[in-house]
């Protein structure tokens, strides 16, 4: 019986890969997102999830619970009342967690950027944002681009090694 390594790969369907790459591949392929539709951007996020744009072909599946999600898509105007809730829900998510800020409002306050006591001037004031998607509101293509940018970021991650 030939026990050489090459034959073993052949016979037992073994693949060789870096564990980092394998984990990143798994993570990036199933970025389930916690839908945080707050205003008109939510309509575009919903459109992105519908069959025409089909976000699920990138492995992104809408979840209604932070405990099942890997990424929050904050889509819309974040009011002060909602800001404390976003923080709480973000804290409930399991690591690794990511945030896509979708639209001008959640990027910087949008039309309320200067005035408006009631609007948070950018969701990055309370939670760390990974990807900013510009637009008012961004088209579904822009959100898909943002999601792919997040995939790229996840693939470059080194979850098992400390970055020096």
């Amino acid at each position, binding site marked *: 019986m030939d026990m050489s390594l090459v034959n073993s790969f052949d016979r037992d369907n073994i693949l060789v890969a870096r564990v980092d790459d394998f984990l990143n591949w798994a993570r990036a392929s199933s970025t389930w997102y916690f839908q945080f539709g707050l205003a008109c951007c939510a309509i575009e996020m919903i459109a992105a999830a519908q069959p025409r744009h089909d976000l699920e072909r990138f492995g992104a599946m809408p979840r209604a619970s932070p405990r099942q999600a890997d990424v929050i898509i904050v889509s819309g105007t974040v009011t*002060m*009342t909602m*800001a*404390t809730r976003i923080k709480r829900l973000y804290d409930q998510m399991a690591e690794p967690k990511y945030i896509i800020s979708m639209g001008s409002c959640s990027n910087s*306050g949008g039309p309320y*950027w*200067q*005035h408006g*006591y*009631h609007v*948070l*001037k*950018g969701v990055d*004031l*309370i939670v760390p944002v990974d990807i900013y998607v510009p637009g008012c509101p961004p088209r579904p293509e822009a959100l898909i681009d943002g999601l792919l940018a997040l995939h790229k970021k996840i693939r470059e991650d080194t979850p098992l090694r400390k970055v020096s």
Partner: protein
Amino acid sequence: MEFTEIIARVDQLAPGAFAPAEEGAGHVWVQPEQWLKVAQLLREDPELHFDSLMCLSGHDRGPEQPLWVAYNLHSMDILHKLEVRIEALREGGSIFSVANIWRTADWHEREVYDLFGINFEGHPDMRRILLPVDWEGHPLLKDYTAPDYYRGIPVLKDKRGWE
């Protein structure tokens, strides 16, 4: 019924409740202490029968003057309208609640309380409705200044040097 006819009818049923209407104003001022009685009357009198409160809004004319609340009434079977206004003090102003007469008033009164700080006496659930419960101040007042921080979150971004 026309505006003057409505006024005449109310004056007949509840004398002194309405202040003399200004010429061509389109609204009428109500004595605050008579409001509950007048509201009941406007709702239930068969000739007036204002069964719908279309809108209820607070107003502020500036720091020196009292606030007011405007009630826009409509009758869905007689098809006439009326706007009544009531003054309230800037500090600790209070008006009788009509939430039990027109259900519309429930949330609208809470909104006016939230943004102007007018208290509605006898309201079943007098809480803030839009802003967080621990918010300080009432933002639609002309002399309102936004706080710098809310629970450690900067409220207004410092944009000095941006322009």
